[in-house]
């Protein structure tokens, strides 16, 4: 019953996440101290590794691309009240869609292929999300349970397909054939070169532009279309949705399929953009980190972009870190990433009540002064 003043946006989406982030870094610093390294130096290397030179930027943004897609995927489902932890599996199966399109429709010209590859990913990713969505909407099976199970099923399915079906004759590695050169997404440095700009080579490719476009599209969809409105209504109050004539089940399925399609775009980056073939476990946990990205970004595309950039930085800077300081192993980098996820995602509400209280008290004092 304790009514409080609504926090202004700059605190809600700016100051609070920043405080959580600083706390995460502070504790990471203590951990670094504990293993006998200098935290200041670690931060320096981390930042230099992420942004210090041109190639690093490329790598950071390449990781960012994956996080934008999986973060957006989580956010769309979340606006419908669904906790989709299946981005990992949806992206994985989406990768199968891209690969099949590239291997079997390779007669198509390059520009058509860009669209077909995207469609392949979308259809497969959305279809994989459809099954848990249907089970939730029509049978009441909890989406958290089913999506996590579908990650395992996707993983087993893909191992089977890669080992028994997609592996080329004579190859000993469980991966698909290379996709034809004209079907690959161009690297940003190649595009820049075409315009006469020289850039260091990095895995950053056209899918980063896709990610930015997708962010704008998701923003428009969620806040400026009828379906987006319906999805938010179902997420915020499913009974009110029924009252309004919005069938919750229908929009649960729609939101999940969009979520699955967004997850699958991660495969565009990995399969069409960088690896040029389907690899085992190419999703490498990006789907799960996407949850933290979305939560930290308050499920808003702009926030997701910033959070994705942060995690891109941690991935790239972290890789540099374990290279530069051998005592800081890759596991240590994972610890730092984990702390950031813990404080910005899972413990997102730690400071909120106190800050709200302080802000309310300040506002009341100010209002009283103004009244006087």
């Amino acid at each position, binding site marked *: *019953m*304790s*009514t*409080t*003043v*609504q926090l202004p946006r700059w605190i809600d989406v700016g100051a609070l996440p920043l405080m959580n982030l600083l706390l995460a870094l502070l504790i990471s610093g203590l951990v670094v101290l504990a293993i006998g390294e200098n935290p200041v130096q670690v931060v320096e290397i981390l930042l230099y590794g992420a942004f210090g030179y041109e190639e690093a930027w490329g790598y950071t943004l390449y990781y960012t691309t994956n996080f934008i897609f999986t973060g957006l995927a989580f956010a769309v489902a979340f606006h419908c009240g669904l906790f989709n932890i299946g981005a990992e599996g949806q992206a994985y199966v989406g990768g199968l869609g891209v690969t099949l399109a590239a291997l079997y429709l390779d007669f198509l010209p390059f520009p058509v292929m860009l669209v077909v590859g995207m469609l392949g990913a979308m259809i497969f990713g959305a279809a994989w999300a459809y099954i848990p969505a249907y089970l939730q909407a029509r049978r009441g099976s909890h989406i958290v349970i089913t999506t996590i199970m579908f990650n395992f099923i996707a993983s087993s399915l893909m191992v089977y397909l890669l080992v028994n079906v997609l592996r080329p004759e004579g190859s000993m590695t469980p991966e698909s054939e290379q996709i034809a050169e004209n079907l690959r997404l161009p690297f940003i440095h190649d595009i820049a070169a075409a315009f006469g700009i020289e850039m260091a080579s990095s895995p950053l490719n056209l899918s980063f532009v896709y990610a930015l476009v997708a962010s704008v599209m998701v923003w*428009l969809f969620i806040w*400026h*279309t*009828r379906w987006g*409105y*319906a999805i*938010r*209504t179902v997420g*915020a*109050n499913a*009974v*009110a949705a*029924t*009252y*309004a*004539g*919005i*069938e919750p089940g229908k929009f649960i399925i729609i939101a999940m399929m969009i979520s699955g399609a967004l997850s699958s775009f991660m495969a565009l980056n990995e399969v069409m953009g960088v690896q040029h073939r389907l690899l085992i476990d190419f999703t490498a946990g990006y789907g799960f980190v996407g949850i933290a990205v979305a939560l930290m970004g308050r499920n808003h595309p702009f926030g997701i972009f910033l959070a994705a950039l942060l995690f891109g930085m941690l991935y790239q800077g972290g890789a540099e870190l374990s290279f530069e300081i051998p005592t800081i192993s890759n596991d240590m980098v994972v610890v730092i990433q984990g702390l950031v996820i813990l404080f910005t995602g899972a413990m997102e509400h730690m400071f909120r009540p106190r800050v709200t*209280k302080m802000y*309310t008290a300040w*506002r*009341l004092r100010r209002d009283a002064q103004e009244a006087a």
Partner: protein
Amino acid sequence: MSDTMHQMHGTGETGAVQPAIELRGIDKRFGAVHANKEIDLKVDKGTIHGIVGENGAGKSTLMSILYGFYQADAGTIHVDGKLCDIRGSEDAIAVGIGMVHQHFMLVETFPVLENVILGVEGGAVLRDGVDRAREELQRLEREYSLDIDPDAIVGDLSVGLQQRVEILKALFRGAEILILDEPTGVLTPQEADHLFRILETLKEQGKTVVLITHKLREIMAATDNVSVMRQGAMVAHRKTAETSPEELSELMVGRKVLLRLEKGDANPADTVLKVENLCVDNAQGVRKVKNASFNVRAGEIVGIAGVSGNGQSELLEALGGIRSVSEGVVELNGQDVTPGKGVDAAELRRRGVAHVPEDRHRMAMVTAFSAKEAAILGYEDDPAYQKGVFLDWQAISNATANMMSEFDVRPANPDLKAANFSGGNQQKLVLAREIMRNPELLLVGQPTRGVDIGAIEFIHKRIVAMRDAGKAVLLVSVELDEIMSLADRILVMCDGAIIGEVAASEANERVLGLMMAGVDPNEAKAVEGQS
């Protein structure tokens, strides 16, 4: 006002009897809200003391402080003249304060006896406690004529009896002071009368009763003294015999209020809604509406009276297209619109059915939305709100501002979060959304639940205006006063069936009350005739 308070304090101090409860300067803030402002209150021993006030006036907060749920920021509590530090319900029970909550705190699968001893079992072996409790319980029942079987399963008892179990629980714990929070909300008028008789017996036995309510009728009928709260402050104390409902309502609202609604005769025209043998089952397959048949004509208000939980909610939800119908037919202007067979809430809206549901928070509003987002709920498909594939937020904002000025919603800010409006203003926004569509049929449930007296007046006028504009209105309410003052015809529901119809001109509380309890209408009218 203040001199009255002095008088009452004066009698307390000079009299030989200590007041049972004395609150001095109780102050409580929740963030920005000043819920209790330096409250002084004296409740004399062996009296029934009413506390009235609108929703949000701070009654429940004050009682929660007395019962130890909240700690006051300032002020002291004295029980029988002794300063008490009440930090939890155990402390309250220890000084002899018992509370009967609005929502019962009972284990439905346990028998009465086990519910009563819950928390005071007295030892690891249940048997000993139960045996000792049985004797004590029988004594209490006799003494206060509570009339309850100790071995009955609580879930099988009627709501009125469950409430008596709550009272028994408090007495078993040795309560000398009993606080009842809105005790009659779920009772039929007869059950309420029985409750007041029990309270009277308690008083005769020397117990003190504090009755919190917003129903003035109950205050006038049951209490000795009454205190009025408004916006967190205690504004007046009165002896019940020396005041009137008019004075109390004026004190509650802070201005003169019209208690009786002025409305002309109805001019019913063609039948708009025709319901035949309607049956509705709930999710568990229990039949909640049984063979309901009635019609509503243009230009009349048909009221459905009944104790909460007798199928009215399910009936209204089915007619609104939210629940599917198991059997029967619903016709709107002669066309079959039976919900479930391809007819949902959206389809009914398109055909001119507007629906103000009973439960605002659960159904009519998305409190996380801004007012303008809430103002298009159900009408988001309206072409006027579209701009190409996108929603036209500018148009929506203008439409919301229009609703707000038409229905006096405050603050008139379409961008404010719906949760930040008071209950009355939320309800006015919902009514504006539904009524300004100019529907053929308005379904409206509990239109004034949780709404201030001032807003009630306004809402009632708008509903009557709908009728006078030649629209059909179906009203469901558990407030008999509301049904009787608004409806032109009254249908009474009991246990899912419509057991009779009474013209508003012939309706009175006793007849309706008997029918609500399931008595045959003819018999009810006969009983009324004898008395």
